Each structure stands twice: as structure tokens, then as C-alpha cells.
């Protein structure tokens, strides 16, 4: 049986204002629709609305139909009949979506046994078959905390689908994942495309491209453009879509031709070997960075990228080899940019105050603050707020500003843009790289995105796990 979705002029608003504006679309059997746009509240609310789980603080207008009922107008009991049996949902954080104290097999078996109502033996064999299909046999007797990320993802996929729902909803399925897990998720979604219909909400253009089907682009809660993936992603019409696509690293302009580097070597690592506990993170690694050089460091998560950065900064010990830092790299001359923007600021204190303390500590010139703010397109009123009240993109620019303020000689930037939307990510990466080149500062840029590194760095070092 096919499940149709029909959304007609759906508007969702909170007390602060409209979040989703007059959205209309429909989805029929075996069709696949991807909604593309910035990370933000609007898109995720759509999934909650389709499941009938919209938070009570929000109001909505417009028509909604899933498998013949309006989930927002129906009693809870009627909505629950949709769940699993008609509509399934791929959870965003598979580890959190699985019961932490129950074996994976049990959590799948119960769907066959109790939702499908099959006799024990049949449920048993279908569970085994299911796990075999998704290469989960090894995971059967494990509890979620013992699973790898990819396994947890596949297990959650199996459980979500076992009750037989033909339509799958996936909300930001690749958020915060590294390349190999992203690959797993895309494969799972493609699997779903073969068995039913799929509605995916994502900020990840690669996901939209891999899934094909129809694509809708959303900006600030409004639909700006829609069409087939093929056509829309090749020749976008709306300026916003164009900007979104341009911000993808493969479309970034390549940095200028090879430059003359100063011969001053700031960081020189020879045959470094680092262990954490008993496991070896990396072995006999050599790397040297010159002043003004931008070096990229690529690799999957777990390959030791961040560890290497911390070792070079002197934050972690190394067990063998030799690390020589130029004498100019005193306190405050080697700095780090963090992946998670709030991670580098003390909470609860106005950011301006934190910057003043820094200016005071290093006897800096307070007058350079406002040109830097201007250069990074930051508004002065942000300085009155504490870190937790500033958006991720702005906070990361403030983190960059704080680094620029004290003119370091060596910066390690650990995935500084992976949590940001592509447009902000591009701007921050460009600013960071051009600053380092101008100021003869060495930069080690860590990223899982090889294309981003190829476009921005003088050379790229690839770590293998």
C-alpha cells in the first residue's frame, strides 16, 4: 500500500514569529523528495508536524494529510497507528534513539513480534534475516554503546522499517558525520528509495545529489525553488540556491599560484609516534610547517587529526620522535580554533569583557578591535552578549577575531567550519587563510573535507586511520 503525503499552505509560527511560511508539496508512492536549506528550526518542524508531534508552544495553519488523516488534527491514538506501520522515521542520533540497556536484537525483534503480531518463531527468523541483510549479525547481542556509529545507524534503520512503513522521513541524517558514516547513511536512504517513498530534510547538497528525485530549496522558512535534483543542482535559478551551491568547496575559487614562502620553519616534527592508552594513534609521522604556510590535514574521524594538532601545540605528549618549535612560538603565539564555536569561550560572561581581559593581559591596542570587527562583518552589539546567546556562525567569527587580535605565529584550526552553514563556512575559511598568508602565520587546517582543503591550502597531508 502506498502512503501519500499532501501539504497545502502549511504555516508554523511561534510567539516570536513565523518559522515556516505557506509550504506546499505532495509526495506519492515510490517518490523521493529532498528539502534543502540551512540548519535551522523550520525544516525539522516539518517532520514533527508530519508525525503529529509538533510542540504545544507552536501554532499552525494550512492543510496536512498523511495516509489519509491529518496528523495534527487527529487524536493521539490515530496518529500512533501511523507510526511504524505507515510512516517510519530515521532517527538523527541513532545512539540516542536506541534503548541503552537492551540488546540490539531484542529491539528489532519486538517490532516483528509485537507490532506485526507474528508468532515467536517467525518473528525470530525474520529478525535474523533482517540483521543479516544489513550486515548486523555481529551486533545482535550487543547493547547500543558497544556499536560503531555505522552499525547503530543501520540498526536504527532496520528497526524504523520493520513495522512495514512505506514512507520514511529523514531529518538531517548526515549532520555531524564524517565521510564514511555519511556514505552509510546515503546507502541506507537509497535502500529506502527502492522499497518506498522518502522525504529527506538536509543541508547537505551531496545528499540531495546522491538521492536524486525532487528537490525543494528552503530559505528562512520559505520555499524559493523546486525541481528535479538533476536540473536544479546543475542550473539553479534563484540567487539563494546559486549562493548555496557556490559555497560548496568544489566551487570555491582556487587560491593564487604557488607563492614564495619565507624560509623560517616554525614547526618541525620528526618521526612522531603517539599512543593513547595502549592504542597507537599514529606512527613515525614527520611534518614541518613554515611561516605563512597553510597546510591541510585530512582524514576520517579516528585517524588522529585532532590529536596531531594538539601534540604540535604542546597540549598532548608524544611518545617517540622529536618536535622542534621555533623560539618565537611563546605563550600566546600558538593558538587553536575549535570545531564547536561555544567550546572556546567562558560561558556567562559578555564577550566584550572576555576580549578586554585578553587585551589587558597582553597589553594590546584596543583600537584594532573595531576594524577587525568590521573586517569579519560583526556588529558591535554582539560584544554585550555572552557566548551562549550568539549564533554559531557569529561566535566562530568572534573566535577568529580573538585569535587575530593577538597576532599569533602558528594556528591549528580543528574543523573550524564543519558545524556551520556552507556560506558562513566559506567566508570564515577565506578570512582565516588570507589572514595567515598576510601575517606570515603558519596554519594547520584540519578537515574531513578533502575538497575544502585542496581549495584553501598550500599542501595537504592525508592521515590514514
Amino acid at each position, binding site marked *: 500500500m502506498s502512503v501519500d503525503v499532501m501539504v497545502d499552505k502549511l504555516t508554523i509560527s511561534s510567539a516570536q514569529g513565523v518559522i515556516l511560511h505557506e509550504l506546499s508539496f505532495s509526495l506519492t508512492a515510490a517518490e523521493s523528495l529532498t528539502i534543502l536549506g540551512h540548519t535551522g528550526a523550520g525544516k525539522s518542524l516539518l517532520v514533527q508536524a508530519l*508525525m503529529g*508531534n509538533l510542540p504545544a508552544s507552536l501554532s499552525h495553519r494550512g492543510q496536512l494529510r498523511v495516509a489519509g488523516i491529518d496528523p495534527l488534527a487527529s487524536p493521539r491514538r490515530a496518529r*500512533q497507528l501511523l*507510526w*511504524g*506501520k505507515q510512516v*517510519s*522515521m530515521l*532517527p538523527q*542520533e541513532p545512539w*540516542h*534513539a*536506541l*534503548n*541503552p*540497556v*537492551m*540488546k540490539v536484537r531484542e529491539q528489532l525483534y*519486538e*517490532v516483528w513480534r*509485537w*507490532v506485526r503480531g507474528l508468532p515467536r518463531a517467525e518473528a525470530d527468523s525474520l529478525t535474523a534475516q533482517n540483521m543479516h541483510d544489513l550486515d548486523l549479525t555481529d551486533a545482535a547481542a550487543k*547493547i547500543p*554503546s*558497544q556499536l560503531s556509529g555505522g552499525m547503530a545507524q543501520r540498526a*536504527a534503520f532496520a*528497526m*524504523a522499517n*520493520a*513495522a512495514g*512503513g512505506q514512507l520514511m522521513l529523514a531529518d538531517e541524517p548526515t549532520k555531524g558525520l564524517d565521510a564514511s558514516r555519511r556514505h552509510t547513511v546515503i546507502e541506507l536512504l537509497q535502500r529506502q528509495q527502492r522499497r518506498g517513498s522518502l522525504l529527506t530534510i538536509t543541508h547537505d547538497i551531496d545528499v540531495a545529489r546522491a538521492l536524486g528525485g525532487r528537490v525543494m530549496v528552503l530559505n528562512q522558512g520559505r520555499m524559493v525553488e523546486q525541481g528535479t535534483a538533476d536540473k536544479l543542482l546543475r542550473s539553479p535559478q534563484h540567487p539563494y540556491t546559486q549562493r548555496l551551491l557556490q559555497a560548496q568547496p568544489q566551487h570555491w575559487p582556487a587560491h593564487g599560484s604557488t607563492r614564495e614562502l619565507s624560509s623560517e620553519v616554525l614547526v618541525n616534527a620528526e618521526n612522531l609516534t603517539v599512543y593513547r592508552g595502549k592504542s597507537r594513534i599514529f606512527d613515525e609521522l614527520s611534518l614541518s610547517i613554515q611561516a605563512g604556510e597553510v597546510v591541510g590535514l585530512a582524514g576520517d574521524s579516528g585517524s588522529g587529526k585532532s590529536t596531531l594538532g594538539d601534540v604540535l601545540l604542546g597540549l598532548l605528549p608524544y611518545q617517540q620522535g622529536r618536535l622542534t618549535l621555533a623560539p618565537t612560538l611563546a605563550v600566546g603565539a600558538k593558538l587553536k580554533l575549535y570545531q564547536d564555536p561555544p567550546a572556546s569561550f567562558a560561558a556567562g560572561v559578555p564577550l566584550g569583557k572576555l576580549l578586554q581581559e585578553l587585551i589587558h593581559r597582553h597589553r594590546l591596542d584596543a583600537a584594532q578591535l573595531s576594524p577587525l570587527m568590521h573586517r569579519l562583518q560583526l556588529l558591535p552589539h554582539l560584544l554585550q552578549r555572552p557566548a551562549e546567546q550568539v549564533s554559531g556562525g557569529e561566535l566562530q567569527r568572534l573566535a577568529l577575531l580573538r585569535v587575530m587580535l593577538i597576532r599569533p605565529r602558528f594556528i591549528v584550526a580543528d574543523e573550524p567550519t564543519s558545524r556551520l552553514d556552507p556560506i558562513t563556512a566559506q567566508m570564515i575559511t577565506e578570512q582565516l587563510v588570507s589572514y595567515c598568508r598576510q601575517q606570515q602565520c603558519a596554519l594547520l587546517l584540519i578537515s574531513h573535507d578533502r575538497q575544502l582543503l585542496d581549495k584553501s591550502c598550500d599542501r595537504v597531508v592525508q592521515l590514514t586511520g
Partner: protein
Amino acid sequence: MKHILWRRAWQALLMAWSVATLTFILLRSLPGNDMAYRIAAGRYGDDAVSAAAAQAVSQELQLQQSAWLQYGHWLADLLTLNLGNSLVTGAPVVDELSHQLGYTLVLAAAAILVAVLLAIPLGLWSGFKAGGTVDNGILVGSVLVRAQPVFTLGLLLIFMFALGLGWLPVAGFREPQYVVLPALTLGLSLAAIANRVVRNSTVQVLNSAYYEFAQLKGLSPTRAFWRHGLRNVLVPTLAFMGIQLIGLVEGVIMIESLFAWPGIGHGLSHAVFARDIPMLQGTALVMGLLFVLVNTLVDISCYWLDPRSREP
């Protein structure tokens, strides 16, 4: 598992050492020959005490030795479980303790039963209706019960059920109904904290991603709760109660004194009052062991209930 038992054995050892050391300091703090006199009085009766008898006791117990030597003997006696005789009754401490222990165990078990029977249903109920009238009502009740030291709670129950309504005996121990009021008092005071813990972990579970996913998989709300809710509510509750069980042991001391319940806690407070050092050491040791024992039981139940704790 092995790890749990080792850790608790280590706790028992530390506990025994600190009790022995404190009681030893107490022994040394008694003025001069006072100790010998009091021991002699305990043995031969008040009338028979003479300087000669005190001298004999002093010789026998090596009270003249240097402090370190005495401390060594004191610890050695403890290691061989030689706890000495009560200074008040003259009977061996071990005999007194074995007599009292049964009473204390009955009281503790009854109190835990009362606490579990009250706290789990009330906590689940408030958790499911979080923020509602029932939840707030139970919250106010719990706060008011917790604001009472356990002995005043006991007094209030005595006024109500023993003196006012005359349903239950006031104090002492002759028949089974004597255990009702002490156990109720202790159970209520434990439940006042425990039901909030159950409530909070219920709220946490109900709002968790895995609980939502269980229903999105298609499970009915009832089945989702039995399969995915209950155990996840109980694990943190149990772990937290492990810490709170200190309240059980402290409560036992107060409640036994209030209700003249002839258990270890009663013995302990009497020994402190009479400065009966061997009894003091014995009762404090047993109280400490009881504490270690309940902690061990909690650890073991957590171990069985929570597979995560079994990971290396």
C-alpha cells in the same frame, strides 16, 4: 563484579580502621585510672570495685603500656574479632551484638519495603503527570516530610497512631505490631526522597529520544513503557538510592532510640551515652558493616539491571 566486591571490601576495611582508631582515641581520652575502675565495675558490680580490682584490670588490659603499643593491641584484637566485654553489663560484646543485629535487620528490611511500596508508584504517577496537581501535591508532601528530622517524624506518628488513635503500641518490642510504627517512620522518610528520584528519572525517560523512537517504531504506549521505560527508570533510581542509604543507617540509629527498639542503633546511642567503649566500637562496626552491605547489594542490583556497567 569482582571489582565491585573488592571496592566494597576495601570500604569495609577503611571503615573498621577508622572506627577502631576513633574508639581508641576515646579510650586514651578517658582520665587515668578511670578506665580500669569502670571496667572493674562492669565486671564485678559497683559494690565490689576496689583499688586492687582496678589494678588487676589495668594489668590485664595492659593499660599502662605506651600509646602505640596499646594501639597495636587494639587493632590486633579487632583483627581477631576479640571485641571485649561491655563495660556496663560485663557481657561479651559479640553476644550483645548478635542479639541486637536481628532486630535491626528486621527494622531495616521492613523500612525498605515500605519505602519501595510508596516511592515507586508515587514517583511513576508524578512522573507521568509531571507538572500536574498530583505531581505538585506529592512534591509538597515530600518536602514537608523531608523537613522533619526522622525522630520528629516518628514523634508525630506516635502522637497520631499510638497516643491519638491507639491503634499501635508506642515503643519497645513484644509483638510483631511493634515494628509497624518504626518501619513506617523510616520508610516514609526514605520514600520522601526516593519518590522524587523515581519521578525525575521517569520524566527523563519519557522525554528521551529512545522512548520516542520506541513508539515511532510502532510499539503501543503501554508496551513501550514496559519494555523501554521501566528498567531505564529503575537504574538511575537505584544508583541514587545507593547514596541515600546513608539515611537508612542514620535513621535506624534515631528510630531505634526513639522507639526503644532493641537493635544496634539503640545500643550505639546508649554506648555513647554511657561511654561504654567496647560496645561503642562493636555497634559502630556493625552499623558500618550494615552500610557497606546495603551499598554492596545496590551495586550488585545495578550490575544486573544495567548491562552498561558490565562493559570493561
